[in-house]
């Protein structure tokens, strides 16, 4: 049975201490000004009581990842054996087609490698059986990582225990694998995925393909038709000439 890695974030245990962010920076030497993970602090007033919610975030390793769909070279791919969304630096050209595609704004162009960078669930670490850096360091133990397909895993247990939600809307639901526990609190708009966007070139691309496909199809049909008619024509000619000979 294949694995399915998921991340759980219990927002009631998160204290916005940023340990996960620094741990990630140290582990993967991400350049300043960029980060693979973050904590969003949302504050508002509800019947004149202030309220604060905290949302640790990172790539959500979606099942129908729009970034993979947008990547021309297949540098963005989903690893079959555990479903994490990775990036093949060898192939990535840094064209950024995937960046606006991500509803969670998890992807960015790394100025040091000139390729796209994002959370990999610490793929090199988990391949060695280690927890992701952010999970290992999380002060409130708000982050839990594991294999959802393994009924004995902690994540499976927790998913059973409580009601978890995902950052999805009716418009945008690409099957994220990052779960959140808010103790029933509604998710604030600030953390909701944005309707994914395209560069203008991407938008054109969306038209080029179908149009091209239709064009090709039409052309094929035309000449198939022509071919048939031609054959029929030939047949008639032949028959005609045969008839002549008979006479």
């Amino acid at each position: 049975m294949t694995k399915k890695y998921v991340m759980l974030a219990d927002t009631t245990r998160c204290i916005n201490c940023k340990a996960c962010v620094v741990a990630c920076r140290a582990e993967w030497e991400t350049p300043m000004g960029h980060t693979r993970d973050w904590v969003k602090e949302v504050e508002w007033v509800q019947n004149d009581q202030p309220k604060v919610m905290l949302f640790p975030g990172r790539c959500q390793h979606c099942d129908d990842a729009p970034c993979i769909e947008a990547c021309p070279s297949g540098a963005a791919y989903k690893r079959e054996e555990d479903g994490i969304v990775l990036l093949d630096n060898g192939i990535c050209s840094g064209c950024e087609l995937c960046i606006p595609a991500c509803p969670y704004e998890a992807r960015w162009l790394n100025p040091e490698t000139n390729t796209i960078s994002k959370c990999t669930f610490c793929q090199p670490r988990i391949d060695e059986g280690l927890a992701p850096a952010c999970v290992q360091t999380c002060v409130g133990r708000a982050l839990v990582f594991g294999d959802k397909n393994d009924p004995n895993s902690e994540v499976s247990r927790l998913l059973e225990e409580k009601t978890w939600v995902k950052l999805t809307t009716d418009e945008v639901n690409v099957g994220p694998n990052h779960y959140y526990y808010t103790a029933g609190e509604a998710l604030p708009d600030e953390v909701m995925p944005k309707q994914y966007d395209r560069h203008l070139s991407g938008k054109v691309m969306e038209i080029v393909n179908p149009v091209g496909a239709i064009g090709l199809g039409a052309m094929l049909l035309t000449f198939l038709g022509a071919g048939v008619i031609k054959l029929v024509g030939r047949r008639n000619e032949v028959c005609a000439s045969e008839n002549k000979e008979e006479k």
Partner: protein
Amino acid sequence: MCFILIFLKQTDLLKKVNRQPQLYLLASGLFNQPTPARINDLCRLLNDLLQTTPKNAPMLPILKALKPQLNYNKVLKTEYSRLFILAFPNEPVQPFASYWLESDHSLMGNSTLEIKKMMAEHGIEVAENSGLLPDHIVSELEFIAYLASQDDEKARQTQRQLLEQHCARWMPQFIEALNKSNPMPYYQLAADFLKQLMV
């Protein structure tokens, strides 16, 4: 083999007709902490160079101008500390490659390790008592001097690589910062000299 600061004494290397090692040694020495002994070494070195340098060399005027500046005094020590140790926010003249090349301006970045590895490949490391990091300008220049003094292809290759792919990426910024922090003549000239050396 540890070489920083010991290397200066290896006069046989300095006798070579090839002036490159001396030039880089001089540069290295100029940016190192000024001590009476070191200043003497530098004078010796400078005299050698003044003799061997052809009249038309662009380097010559700077070397000549440098000569009278090469005498040890307290002001020099303070100036050295002000410029390279107490980097103030308005004029950080950090003498470390890593500072200029790492996105967080931290020391001991990957750039430092590259140099360390390069040195290791030539059987060299920074002397522990020197208090210098491998990518400190003094270490780097002295390393180049060492490479220039070796006449094998590997050394020449490393030197080229070092200058073109590493030094070129940070020393110009360093020189600019140094110029901005209106240094005393000694360091002004050191900056000009290094600039000249880079071209």
